[in-house]
Structures are given as C-alpha cells and as structure tokens.
C-alpha cells in the first residue's frame, strides 16, 4: 500500500524484462537442439542409424558415415584421461593436503592459468614444440620398449592420435584438478584427525580419510574433464593428422567429431555433405550434454550444502 501505483507498474515491467533474459538461457538451448535437428534431417533421412556405423566418408559420392570420427573422439579422450587423471589428482592432493600454506594460492593459480591459454595456442605450441619432441625422443623410446603391442606399432610421423591425446591431457588437467581440490576441501576436518589419531601416516590419512570420502566428487571432476576433452576442437585438429581412418596404433593419424567440423564445415559443398556434418555436431552435442549432466550431479552430491569455494 505504501508503494505508488506507478512503482508497481514499472516493477511489473522490470520483472518481465528480467524474466525474458532468464528464459533466453532456456531459449538458447532449445534453439541449439532445434537448429541441429533441422539442419541434419537430410542426412538422418538418407542414412538413418547406419550413419553411426558406417566407415565410409566420401563427399564426392555423397556417402557419409561417422564411425571413424566417433572412434577418434573416444580414443583421444580416453587417452587424455589416462594421462591426466593421475597427474590432476596428484596436484590436487598435494595442494590441499601436503604443501605449505603459503604455496597453496600460487600453485592453484598457476594450474588454473593453464585453463586460460586458448586452444589455438596449445595447438600452435604442439605443432612446433611438442610434436618434434615426440618424434625425436618419445616415439623411438616407445617403439623400443612397447613396439610389440599393437598400440605403439607402425611408423610415427608426428601428427597422430598420441599427440592429440597428450595435448588434450594438458588441457583438461586444470578442470579435473580444480574440481578435485574443491571436493577435497569439503571433506570434514575430523575425518583427517580421526585417521591421524588412529596412528595413520599422512598418506594413509589421505587414502582412508580423504580420498575415500571424496570418491564420488573426484569421479564427477573426471567426467567433467571427459566432457571437455570430447568437445575440444582446435588443438586436436592441429595435431591429430585429420585422416578418417580407424587404426589400432596410437601412432597413426585420426580424426575426431569436433575436428572434422572445424576442418570441413566451411568448405562443405552440397546439402547432404553439410547435413552429415551437422549430424556429427548433433551427436557430439548430445554426448557432451549427457556427460556434463552426469558430472554435475556427482559433484553436487559431494559438495551439497557446502559453499563450493570455502577455506582456501
């Protein structure tokens, strides 16, 4: 009653304006889904489910199959996880449980600085620094020791699944590490004290009191990293070799769903060709949505009720 009626009218306008902005977020998601489905329908009607099973990628004859790209995305992302997870968790454990308090801030700042480097710069560095190092030192050593396994067989020309996996690993370490750190920090202090009081060494305390409690959240962070790796485009496109083949060896070049879009979309001629590329985009979109939703859920179950960024 104290409010003037003009105030009420403008309040209502303000409310509607802000609601429009809020709903725009939902609208964008709907727009993405709608556009991807609309533009890929041609390919969907032409190939159906066979699109995901077929290995053929022949723009000249308008025959398209996404299997090499799905394979490349899965293998490069898994390889990245294998490399990144131990490193990222190690860094998180060190910063929260082991290192002197003064080092904590700078250390997490530096690791997060890795996340601020644009993908294209990772790619540039990978082409001119990492790939030559791999060719000169790492690949010969791998051939000598593990060359008998199919994973490291064949010649190494630099641009390969291995190079893509390593650069991806470097790129997803910050996200896994920072989520793990957040999760470790919300493990109650008395869990640590209880373990120590029972005579545990520091490592035993971390293993029993901390890591075991934070398991679900760490897995969430890892899945979030996986989501990032699946959709990562530029750096991978620049070092994976861009060849639509399915090879067992990590030394062989490959192609990912994201990199085929970056590489071919702007030059795609013909409606079916473009439509097939959009369908790859749609598949990539759906996979990352599911992966991300799962990760959020897991992280949320651990940090629930606690401020996500607490006592740094």
């Amino acid at each position, binding site marked *: 009653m*104290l*409010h*003037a009626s003009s*105030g*009420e009218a*403008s309040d209502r306008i*303000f*409310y509607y304006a*802000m*609601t429009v*902005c*809020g*709903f725009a*977020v*939902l609208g*964008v*998601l709907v727009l*993405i889904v709608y*556009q991807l489905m*609309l*533009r890929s329908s041609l390919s969907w009607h032409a190939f159906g489910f066979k699109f995901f099973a077929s290995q053929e990628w022949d723009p000249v004859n308008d025959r398209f199959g996404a299997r090499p790209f799905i394979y490349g995305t899965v293998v490069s992302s898994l390889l990245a996880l294998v490399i990144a997870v131990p490193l*990222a*968790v*190690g*860094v998180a454990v*060190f*910063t929260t449980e*082991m290192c002197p308090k003064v080092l904590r801030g700078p250390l997490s700042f530096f*690791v997060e600085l*890795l996340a*601020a480097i*644009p993908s*294209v*710069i990772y*790619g*540039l*560095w990978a*082409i001119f*620094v990492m790939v030559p190092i791999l060719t000169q030192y790492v690949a010969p050593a791998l051939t000598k020791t593990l060359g008998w396994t199919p994973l490291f067989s064949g010649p190494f020309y630099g641009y390969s699944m291995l190079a893509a996996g390593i650069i991806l690993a470097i790129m997803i370490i910050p996200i896994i590490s920072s989520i793990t750190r957040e999760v470790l920090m919300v493990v109650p202090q008395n869990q640590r004290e209880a373990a120590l009081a029972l*005579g545990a060494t*520091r*490592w*035993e305390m971390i293993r029993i009191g901390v890591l075991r409690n934070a398991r679900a959240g760490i897995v969430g962070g890892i899945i979030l990293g996986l989501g*990032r790796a699946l*959709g990562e*485009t*530029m750096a991978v496109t*620049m070092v994976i070799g861009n060849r639509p083949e399915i090879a067992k060896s990590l030394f062989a070049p490959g192609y990912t769903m*994201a990199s085929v879009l*970056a590489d071919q*979309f*702007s030059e795609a001629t013909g409606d079916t060709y473009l439509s097939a590329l*959009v369908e790859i985009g749609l598949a*990539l*979109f759906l996979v*990352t*949505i599911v992966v*991300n*939703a799962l990760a*959020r859920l897991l992280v949320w179950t651990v940090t629930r009720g606690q401020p996500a960024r607490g006592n740094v």
Partner: protein
Amino acid sequence: MSDNAAAITLHKVPPISLRRRFVDHLMTGLAIATVVIVLAPLIAIFGYLVYRGIGSIDWAFLTQIPRPPGEAGGGMANAIGGSIFVLGIASLIGVPFGIGAGIYLAEFGRNQMGNAIRFTADVLNGVPSIVIGIVAYSIVVLYQKHFSALAGGVALAIMMVPTISRTTEEMLLLVPQALREAAYGLGVPRWRTTLSITLRTATSGVITGVMLAFARVAGETAPLIFTAFGNSDWSRHLTFALFGKTLRMPFLDYSQPTAALPLQIYVYAISPYDEQHRLAWAGSLVLIIMIVGAVSAVRYVVRRGSFGA
C-alpha cells in the same frame, strides 16, 4: 602398582613400520612429481611464446595488414581490430542478457523455473564451442547468405551468457538482505532497489564475471571458423576526398566476413611459410597478453572492491 605399569605399556603406540614410512615418503614424492610434470608445459608454453613472439611485435605488426603468402613483413592489424570488433558485438549482446538472467535468478528465481534455468546455464557451459558455431551459422550466416562479423559475435555472445548469469547471481546473493529491506522501507520500488542498490553494491563481482566470460571467449577459434570466417584485409574501406586527394580508410563492417586474431593464428600455424609461423607466434603473444590483461584487471578491481570472488 603393577596394574598401573601394565596399563601404561598397553597404551604405548607401536612405532610406524619401515614399509609404511617408505610408502608415505614415496607418495609425497609422487605428488611433488605430478606438480612438476603439470607445471612444466605451462612454463614451456609461456617461455616459448615470449621467446618466439616478442621479437616480432613491432609497429608494423600492429599497424599493417598481412602481405601475400611467402612475402616477408606485414602485420596483423586487421586481425587484432577484427577480434576487438567481434568481441565488442558479443559483449553488446551477451552482457545485458547475462546480467538480466543473473538478476532473474537471484531476485525471482527461488523456484523450479529458476532451478531449470540454472541447470541449463551449467549445461550450456559444457556445450562444445564448435557446436555453438554451427548454430550461429544456421541462424545468421544462412539468413544473411554470407559469413559476417555479426555471426561470429552471436556465437561468442551465446557462450558468454551462462558464465555471466551464474556469477552475477552469486554476487547478487552476497548482498545482505538488510540493504534491500532498507530500500523497500524507504518506499523505493523493487526495480530501483535491484538496479541502484543490489546491483550497484555487487558491481565489482559482476564485472569479474563479465571479464571472465570475456577472457574465455577471446581465444575461441572454433566457433569463428564458419561465422566470422576470416579476411586477409579489413572488412571494408571507406573512401572519401580530402583536399583533392582520395583517402582510403579501413572500416569494420558487421555484415562482412572479418579477420580475427585466433582464426588468423590457426590459419598461419598450419601454413607452410616460416614468415606466417612468425606472425602466428607474435599473434599468440598479443592474444595471451589481452587475456591475461583482462584477468589481472579483474583481480585488481576485485581486490579494491568490497566483494571478493
């Protein structure tokens, strides 16, 4: 007496075995090793960037446009200008929507609808940028019938909104309820309270969110490939007569394909010419300086303001 002595010996803690102590040290060593391994690429990337880039950043680099492939010299002025232009368009669209959505979430979003929007924003954050590029291509490029700076701006704007809305919400919720109530008590309408009291108090935090979103999209390449597309020249030139001479002035046109720094780095990195590799390194250094500059500016503002991130 003897009972007491027995009790004391019972409570004596057995020494930690050699094996357990060894494992403890081993694990500490491994953890330190992971830190070294993770920080090594960071140092290598920054070191190499400065080493290769610093010598090439000169007046020509900042003011000239690229020469034809294979020729020495030239610069990336059009790419730097184009990048700032595209980012400007993105901010113009993304910032108001992002802050608006943040206000909705903080002030009116304590319900199912708010939760749905929050979840959607988090999900959007994880959508690969190349997919956003496809969408911007479908709604702008196909409509305009050619690549344009506007399409690139729309793609980046879509990527800015989730980050801005979530940080804005967080910052607005930090503002004490009592401040809002004080304003209501004085008869200030709700919209004035939100804009001039709540949002104003949280300004530094909101700016942090905007700059973080800005830093995140500034280096994005993938969504620009088939939206802004790239350009070896300025997107347009204005010609006009002055004192009897015809002057050509570079001009940025929102409806034309435009060069952008990350895009140009990509093209140069995979080109076969050394001269272009040189420009790619220099361009990367400029890009990193832009991004780190934005992030440091944020830290400076936040430290001075009343709200920490």
